[in-house]
């Protein structure tokens, strides 16, 4: 029997789940194919959940989604080998419902999301890999899976297959991913009793803390580290550009081991039992590295389309929002009796352009290049800052003015005045 659907969604991460949910709710016939054992079984994320994007899809998600802690405090640390200098922002405003950011554990969250998708009426089939797109000339008319009799047809296929979309590559929609456009991140979950987490991070109930880290933990490579509190565990991880790992000839695992041994970090995870170790790519090429996003009978959403804001560590929310807009585009066209042609699907691009997704990605489009060509941001500055703080805070009979001079000297010695001003300018330009 030939199976035919209105839409086939490839992948059951946040982007695919959002698209499938929306489409099924609107009454379209949807097949979602996922290669993992269940939705989320292969997925990796920090993970911070940004409520806003999910709320648009599932307004009552707080009632039964498996959330860990809501974030009430954000720490930004700049580390050198044995110190950190940083800022902590904690506000009781973050303790007012509805909360805006939560920690969560992806495998559980995705499973919950997928149940919603199935309840909405989408047919979800797991443990099935899409190996090819079926094409009729330039038009996508379905997919081929790795199972016997695996040809399935649809009016449109949504590629939600995550970073390094092999399908898009095979079909020629998008070139080979460049090592400079992807970060490789590793993370571990360490089990710690709830009481211990509350003591160590000065929180109660389901309050949580986020620590974002830059500096020598990445050994001069472009990247960041993070530590999040879950209910009964702590997530810790680090990620750097793939091209940098190649250049430095080091492994992410070694990096994480060193990071965990840092005197500022070690006490936070001490005594924990490691529950999970995962590694995953993050597409961080930004706006300049984005592939074509739609064509005759197909659309790309989420990580597959490079929808990640690396500066603010946002990915899942962009995934959900792009999934939603892709679905809405198809729903509208179906209502208007229009076909899913390239010309008509342009509406997806317009929806994205109007949303925060494209506005943010455009804003930071030069960021990757600035950091790629200026490693001093990850190496020299953390050390300089830390030394400056140490100099000022050490009471040793030297007057403050001399100390300031010493610090200025140190900055100029390591990075010429020209370099300092230039760096500030580059950063300002990229952020502006």
């Amino acid at each position, binding site marked *: *029997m030939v*199976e035919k659907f209105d839409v086939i969604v490839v992948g059951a991460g946040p982007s695919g789940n959002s698209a499938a949910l929306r489409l099924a709710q609107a009454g379209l016939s949807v097949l979602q194919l996922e290669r993992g*054992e*269940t939705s989320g*079984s292969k997925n990796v994320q920090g993970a911070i959940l940004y409520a806003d994007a999910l709320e648009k899809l599932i307004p009552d998600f707080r009632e039964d989604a498996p959330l860990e802690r809501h974030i009430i405090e954000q720490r930004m640390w700049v580390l050198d080998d044995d110190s950190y200098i940083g800022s902590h922002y904690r506000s009781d405003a973050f303790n007012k419902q509805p909360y805006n950011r939560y920690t969560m*554990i992806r*495998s*559980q969250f995705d499973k919950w999301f997928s149940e919603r998708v199935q309840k909405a009426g989408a*047919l*979800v*089939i797991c*443990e*099935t890999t899409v190996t090819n797109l079926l094409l009729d000339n330039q038009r996508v008319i379905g997919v081929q*899976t790795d*199972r*016997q*009799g*695996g*040809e*399935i047809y649809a009016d449109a296929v949504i590629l939600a297959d995550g970073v390094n979309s092999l399908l898009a590559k095979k079909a020629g929609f998008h070139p080979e991913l460049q090592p400079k456009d992807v970060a490789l991140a590793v993370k571990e979950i360490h*089990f710690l*009793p709830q009481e211990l987490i509350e003591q160590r991070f000065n929180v109660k109930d389901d309050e949580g803390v986020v620590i974002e880290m830059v500096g020598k933990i990445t050994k001069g490579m472009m990247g960041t580290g993070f530590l999040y509190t879950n209910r009964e565990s702590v997530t810790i991880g680090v990620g750097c550009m793939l091209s940098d790992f190649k250049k430095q000839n080091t492994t992410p695992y070694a990096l994480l081991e060193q990071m965990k041994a840092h005197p500022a970090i070690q006490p936070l995870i001490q005594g924990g*039992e490691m*529950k999970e170790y995962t590694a995953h790519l993050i597409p961080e090429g930004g706006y300049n590295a984005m592939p074509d996003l739609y064509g005759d009978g197909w659309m790309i959403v989420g990580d597959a389309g490079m929808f990640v804001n690396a500066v603010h560590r946002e990915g899942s929310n962009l995934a959900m929002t792009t999934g939603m807009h892709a679905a809405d585009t198809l729903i509208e066209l179906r209502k208007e009796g229009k076909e899913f042609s390239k010309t008509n699907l342009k509406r997806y691009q317009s929806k994205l352009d109007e949303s925060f997704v494209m506005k943010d990605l455009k804003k930071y489009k030069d960021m990757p290049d600035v950091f790629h060509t200026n490693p001093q941001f990850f190496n020299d500055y953390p050390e300089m800052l830390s030394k400056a703080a140490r100099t000022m805070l050490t009471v040793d009979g030297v007057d403050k003015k001399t100390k300031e001079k010493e610090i200025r000297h140190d900055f100029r010695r390591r990075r010429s005045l020209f370099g300092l001003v230039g760096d500030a300018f580059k950063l300002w330009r990229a952020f502006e």
Partner: protein
Amino acid sequence: MHIVVCIKQVPDSAQIRVHPVTNTIMRQGVPTIVNPYDLFALEEALRIKDQYGGRVTVLTMGPPMAEAALRKAISYGADDAVLVTDRVFAGSDTLATSFALASAIKQINKDMPVDLVFTGKQTIDGDTAQVGPGVAKRLDMQLLTYVSKIRSLDIENKEIVVERRSEGGVQVLKTKIPSLITVLEGNNEMRFATMANMFRAARYPVKIWNKDAAGIEDITKTGLKGSPTVVSKVFAPTPRAVKAEIIQCESNEPKDLSVTLLTKMFTKFPKIEKEISKRAA
């Protein structure tokens, strides 16, 4: 030919953790799988169906989420699936489990007479290997345990020939059907489901039976009430204090290897060396 295969959804033991403080098993968030032995049983049943025709019904007793295990069995090619689920079954030991499964099989039998019942050898979470024999007893069926292969089936004469693993060898046994067979891990790897069967499984309405549908009247034989066994304590074994060590050796010659090993051993445990030299003398 109608075969009922009993399957149990179990936590993936590779991913189970014991709570460091309370010492209880942390099941939350641990993925579930179909008990591996039960998949061998299912594959044997499917092979019989392929060869002789007939019908395969999968049966489980468990919480509502056990439906996933049944759906998986459908994707491999089972025809029907029954989930027996009811609050009264909570806390069942092997006695109560066998009782509930036997009752359900009697109900299935009304629909189409059951010729064979397959179970796994044992589960990877309870490990008792008692449920199969318990069901056979209650259904008054022939029982064959530790079967690694079904050799042949004579439908006319209602006879089955199997290979049974035993100490020191393999027994080839013949018995009358209906019978109950508990299946070992064999060399029959589970098939890769076809796309059509994946669709069938995704759409299949699993039969969900409460105690009444399963034909159970006497609830004192179910759940905690019907379970004389009590698991009083679960604890993680204390890890060994002695750590394993890799001993480096330059050459790969057996003689050099043994000399290095013995030198290491004798330095660490001088007593052993003394003892050996004493005996040699």
